[in-house]
């Protein structure tokens, strides 16, 4: 549905995107993830044919974004970084204007406005003037604008910015529902959002793709040794550290000792060694109050891939 091949974008001498290759299948939700200034917005603007790529090609639904820009724009719903709103208009007249620009016939326009407003929770706000709306509501109007013509492809630049937690959950649900018959590209720097909504993630840093995979696979790649977070009362047993350290490859990290309670992260060479160690410590009179496996999260993936350490090592 969406294809980017070797896309590079220069702003004067600044390279915003470098040789981006990307493809998104129909019905997929792709998350674009990256720190500020990574090139997420630039990539989206190229896909919406708002700006041209310096080199490389991009197609949406089989149409080139530069050559067949009009066809691309017909099939696209786009929520830019700043919701493009006219503060002096009411929500209803604004959506009606968008419907006219999107070539919806008058009858369909009315039903779509009602349907979309209902889905996004704007039904009551239709007669309100946009300038008087809160940030969250403006964001919703921006989203309604992108959905109005039921486009094949939705490009959402940080769709949940400025929404409160309840709204975020609603919008996430909405985005997931939409994925059944839409192809969605969304950018965000809110990591849980990606884990919850996106089938696949592209991590961009300094204009380059550093990882493309499903959230689960990405988490596996940085997982490293199996780890547990443990809160433990050693009791009379003062040798617990030695007991652990006897296990090959065992590590204790982030140890905090307070009034007879120890909190630490335990890393072992293999998960199998844990059972034996647990029994041994318990037999020695230790009491466990918390044992939870520590999984690598998308956050770790993100930090590892974008913090710069990785690249220094490579160099």
């Amino acid at each position, binding site marked *: 549905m969406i294809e980017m091949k070797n896309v590079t974008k220069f702003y004067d001498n600044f390279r915003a995107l470098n040789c981006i290759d990307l493809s998104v299948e129909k019905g997929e939700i792709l998350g674009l993830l990256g720190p500020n200034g990574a090139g997420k917005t630039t990539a989206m603007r190229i896909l919406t044919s708002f700006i041209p790529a310096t080199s490389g090609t991009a197609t949406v639904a089989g149409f080139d974004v530069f050559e067949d820009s009009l066809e691309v724009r017909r099939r696209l719903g786009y929520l830019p970084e700043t919701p493009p709103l006219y503060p002096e208009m009411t929500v209803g007249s604004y959506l009606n204007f968008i419907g006219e620009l999107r*070539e919806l016939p008058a009858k369909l326009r009315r039903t779509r406005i009602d349907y979309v407003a209902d889905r996004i929770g704007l039904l009551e706000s239709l007669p309100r003037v946009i300038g008087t709306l809160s940030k969250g509501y403006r964001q919703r109007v921006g989203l309604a604008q992108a959905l109005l013509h039921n486009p094949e492809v939705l490009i959402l630049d940080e769709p949940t910015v400025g929404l409160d937690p309840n709204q975020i959950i609603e919008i996430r649900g909405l985005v997931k529902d939409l994925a059944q018959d839409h192809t969605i590209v969304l950018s965000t720097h809110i990591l849980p959002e990606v884990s919850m909504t996106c089938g696949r993630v592209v991590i961009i840093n300094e204009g380059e793709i550093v990882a493309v995979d499903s959230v689960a696979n990405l988490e596996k790649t940085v997982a490293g040794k199996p780890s547990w977070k443990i809160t433990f009362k050693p009791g009379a047993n003062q040798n617990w550290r030695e007991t652990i350290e006897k296990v090959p490859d065992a590590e204790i990290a982030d140890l905090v000792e307070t009034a007879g309670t120890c909190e630490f992260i335990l890393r072992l060479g293999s998960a199998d060694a844990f059972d034996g160690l647990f029994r041994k410590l318990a037999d020695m009179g230790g009491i466990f109050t918390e044992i939870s496996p520590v999984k690598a999260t998308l956050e770790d993936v993100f930090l590892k891939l974008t913090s710069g350490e990785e690249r220094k090592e490579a160099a």
Partner: protein
Amino acid sequence: MKIFALMKKELQSFFFSPIAYIVFASFLMIVGYLFWVILVSSRVASLEPMLYNAAFILLLASPVLTMRLISEEKKSRTIELLLTSPVSPAEIIAGKFLACFVLYLVLIALTLQYPLILSFYSTEFDLGPVYSGYIGLILIGAAFISLGLFASTLTENQIIAAMISFGGLILFWVFGWAKNVFDNSFGEILGNLSIFDRYAEFLRGVVDSGNVVFFLVFTLIWLFLAARVLESDRWR
């Protein structure tokens, strides 16, 4: 269809902001004053001096109406919406132009009270120059708006857009003065570019097809350039 949607939206914004009202009020106040002063001092039932001055006031007022047309969309980033909708830059420019032009026609229509007053009280009032004068006023308005609209595509700063259109319009006004300075073909070419010399002919009651074509071409050139500038934003 999309052009009319854009036009309707633009007309709405004109009346939501105080700019249109303020321009209307000050224009009508000045024109009303001029009508009175000129009539009382000359005691001639002619609209020519008033219409001549009205065009100059419109030259000063029209950049205030046109400056926001595209600049504001750029500043508030709503241009991103327009350019990523299935609308061509030419349609955007046409919609904006028509909205401003309709507003201008309403403004001009409000001055029709003065020829009405004259025809009511004067026994020998010649309507010919009034018709041709208003044709000229409509044409020169289209020219003002097109140049102002072009200026507005150049920048996201409304003040700069207004200043560029002031500069441009006043330049096309004073071009005519070259005729008195250079007694050669150069002076003649500059003189032909003068929008006010051509407008003055309409006021004398002459609707010269050359002048009509000049204003139409002048308007279309600036509209064409405005659409190109808007389009070129997509190439950069």
